[in-house]
């Protein structure tokens, strides 16, 4: 009995020390596999989550940066912010609400927000491209350091990806990362029958 509890304590300590908490995402995506072994950096990542239905959710890790970006967007769209809204926004996870619905969304309690968020998504259509506004604001705040990462599900149709990449190209954002899961490819698979 005692050795088993020793093993349990060891395993527990290992997990506690080596893992990081997952951020709850509005839409769970299954990223495609790739052999690329480049690790995604932890800081200064502006992540774009594209759901299979084409909804776009954005996430920026630093809470202070989030507040600055929010303030920029608010001035562009003539929305005044209360301190509470700024605070809630900075600690929330991904955001994906059009600016028109922002105030009413933020006034909802947190569980309701998490529940309703998958129904929204940032507009990316050409008439109302708020997505470009967010990316531009984030770039203004962070400068050169920030890297853009795109995370989408395996089954997301290419049209939505093309939309997002097109908007990024319009903003001259030409370098970005695509988040994937690791796939092992054996030596013989790699070199074929050479």
């Amino acid at each position: 009995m005692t050795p088993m509890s020793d093993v349990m304590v060891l395993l527990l300590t290992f997990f506690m020390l080596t893992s990081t908490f997952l951020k709850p995402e509005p839409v769970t995506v299954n990223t495609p596999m790739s052999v690329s072994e480049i690790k995604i950096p932890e800081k200064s990542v502006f992540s774009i989550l594209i759901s299979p239905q084409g909804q776009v959710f954005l996430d920026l890790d630093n809470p202070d940066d989030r507040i600055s970006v929010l303030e920029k967007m608010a001035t562009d769209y003539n929305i005044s912010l209360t301190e509470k809204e700024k605070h809630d926004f900075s600690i929330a996870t991904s955001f994906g609400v059009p600016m028109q619905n922002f105030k009413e969304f933020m006034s909802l309690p947190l569980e309701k927000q998490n529940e309703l968020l998958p129904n929204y998504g940032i507009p990316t259509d050409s008439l109302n491209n708020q997505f470009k506004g967010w990316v531009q604001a984030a770039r203004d705040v962070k400068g050169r350091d920030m890297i853009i990462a795109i995370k989408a599900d395996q089954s997301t149709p290419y049209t939505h990806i093309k939309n997002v990449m097109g908007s990024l190209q319009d903003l001259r954002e030409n370098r970005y990362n695509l988040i994937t899961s690791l796939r092992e490819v054996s030596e013989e698979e790699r070199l074929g029958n050479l």
Partner: protein
Amino acid sequence: MADKKGKKKGEMKKADTRVNFTPLVDMIMLLLTFFMLATTLSKPQTMEISMPAKDKVTVEEQNEVKASEAFTIYLGAGHKVYYYEGLPNIEEPDYLKETDFSANGLRSILIEKNRNIVQQVRELENRKSLLQISKEEYNKQLSNLKNSKGSPVVIIKPLESSTYSDMIAALDEMLITSIGKYAIVDINDDDKTMLRNSSFPVN
């Protein structure tokens, strides 16, 4: 009085020193399960990609690529890949060929096309594993090889019916088959005509 005290002292109870460990193990198992479910060990990987600026890529630049080096891939529905080598040929009906993402599909075709460079990369990797060259040197020589004169240029044109995983799989094949020059380009009208003329069920 002395007797009573003596009796009481004699009737001292034995202290029960055995502690039950079972609740401790239960708690630990609960905590462990919580951590296993709520956290993640691995950081997700990324693929880096740079796209050309929108205004720069023109049709003339696309055709500047030598026909011997060019290789065009269309990504269609159902994880299918259609490809042709060299310049587009709208008239010929069977110009466009079909393959898929399996090991003896697109990969073997690309390895065959890139044979020279793949062999050199293999030698380079051998040298790296034998520690004859450093990692930085390996990376430098690898990118030199991939961008060397005469290396193939792959143009990836995803169709609207393809998915994100198709695009990633195509980019992945570029990495696996050591192709350094590739680009993701939108479809133009010539492509649409070619796809319509082909015998494949493409929109």
